[in-house]
């Protein structure tokens, strides 16, 4: 122990605390729920058993994960395409900015969950609602941040391009876009978390499908232990997608790591 490097000793300390605290939580949870009815509470041991069953024996979880993931990626992908396009247009054209700004501001501030009843009128209670809600939830932060980023690109950087006689297109792709990336990524990250709320929200509130629908179905049948399994999958999916986004961002913004 005495020979260990201090950083290493610190890591060991951190993990001791982390694991210790997790064990305390799990034990407290187990003890407080064990005596209760299985229809009202699920001890971790039961959840573990349900996890095994649903994942490796029945396998329903995977098909539902695909259902959720598909709607998420379709909606979020469309939101990125639309958001970047409209955002750049607003960042580069004042007319577009003035014309569209009131709606972007309104829709960005509006909790998109509140649009569910409107979507039900338009589409019926239908799988497509999820994709549309994901788009509506995530496109506005992407538009807003892209527009702000493109609009606020340092004029001097653009002059560098001009001084080398770069074409408009070349300036847009080689200067404006990279310079706006920090804000664009901020928009993508906010959009991502809104998109996740959108897809799971739609599944829980109206459509009852995918992982969100599974949570509701188990809850309605008082299968408490089972209910935790899709929750765990949703959390994992969310964490993985967020981590993937962060990873993507560091690849795209390598040069910023050198700050300080």
């Amino acid at each position, binding site marked *: 122990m005495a020979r260990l490097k201090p950083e290493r000793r610190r890591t060991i300390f951190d993990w001791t605390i982390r694991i210790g605290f997790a064990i305390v939580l799990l034990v407290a949870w187990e003890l407080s729920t064990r005596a209760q009815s299985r229809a009202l509470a699920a001890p971790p041991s039961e959840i573990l058993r349900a996890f095994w069953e649903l994942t490796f024996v029945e396998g329903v979880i995977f098909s539902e994960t695909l259902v959720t993931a598909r709607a998420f990626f379709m909606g979020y992908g469309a939101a990125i395409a639309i958001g970047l396009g409209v955002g750049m247009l607003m960042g580069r*054209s004042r007319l577009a900015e003035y014309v569209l700004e009131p709606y972007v*501001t309104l829709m960005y501030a509006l909790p998109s969950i509140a649009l569910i009843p409107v979507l039900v009128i338009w589409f019926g209670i239908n799988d497509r609602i999820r994709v549309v809600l994901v788009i509506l939830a995530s496109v506005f932060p992407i538009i807003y941040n892209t527009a702000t980023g493109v609009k606020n690109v340092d004029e001097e950087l653009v002059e560098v391009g001009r001084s080398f006689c770069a074409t408009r297109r070349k300036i847009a792709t080689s200067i404006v876009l990279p310079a706006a990336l920090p804000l664009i990524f901020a928009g993508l990250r906010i959009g991502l978390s809104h998109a996740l709320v959108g897809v799971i929200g739609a599944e829980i509130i109206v459509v009852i499908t995918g992982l969100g629908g599974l949570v509701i179905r188990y809850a309605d049948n008082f299968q408490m232990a089972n209910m935790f399994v899709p929750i765990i999958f949703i959390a994992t999916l969310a964490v993985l997608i967020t981590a993937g986004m962060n990873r993507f961002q560091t690849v795209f913004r390598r040069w910023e790591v050198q700050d300080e």
Partner: protein
Amino acid sequence: MTTLSAEYALLGRIPPRVVRIASVVLVLVTWEVAGRAAPRWASYPWEIGAAFVDNADRIAEAFVETFKAVGVGYALSVVGGVLIGFGMARIRVVKVALDPYVAVLYSTPRITLIPLAILLIGIGFNLRVLMSVLASIFPMIINTYAAVDSVSGELEETARSFTASRWSITRTVLIPGAIPGIFVGMRVGIIRALVGVIVAEMTAGAAGVGALLLVFGRFFQSEKLFGPVLLLGLVSILLTRGLSYLERKLAPWQD
């Protein structure tokens, strides 16, 4: 910079406000004309306005109900989030023990937890408060933490070099240093607190704006539906703007 020159010449003479108003008027007129042709889909502004006035009492009641829960939940989030954020920034054990949960819960849509929340505390007022706390406390924690952490290095050392005590460092460096982060958290958090309450009202509540929207939606009463939806958007804008104004008043040093 990249503005087209013809467009620039045109806009040079027209104030932005006029363009914005013209755009809104144009959309409203188009909506009115199209809506009258097919009123089932999106109604039309005139009818929406009339329905809004007719239902003003119900709508007002629902908003009061919703914002009571938002107020309580948001207040709890702000206080709790600031305390936890401070704790995580200053006490290593707290940070290490909590950061996995904060990270996972922050990226997971908290709406997932609603069946569990119903199970734990039922479907009354408390559920709406709990959902709004769950929705809004994590941005409070994370932004407070980041702000306190950012003044914990050099500025804290500066204060120490002038013989500042622990308490005086807290009072003169950590607390003012946390304010910008707290405001970022509050601005993000207010909308999330509202989302949390509406989610609870849509899944389990018999009251509030979420429940009202479901009722209007269920019978395809699109003319009744759009009024409160738009009002919700406007209130959200006002709340965010209000917080920005408050921030400029209370933290005027930021450029």
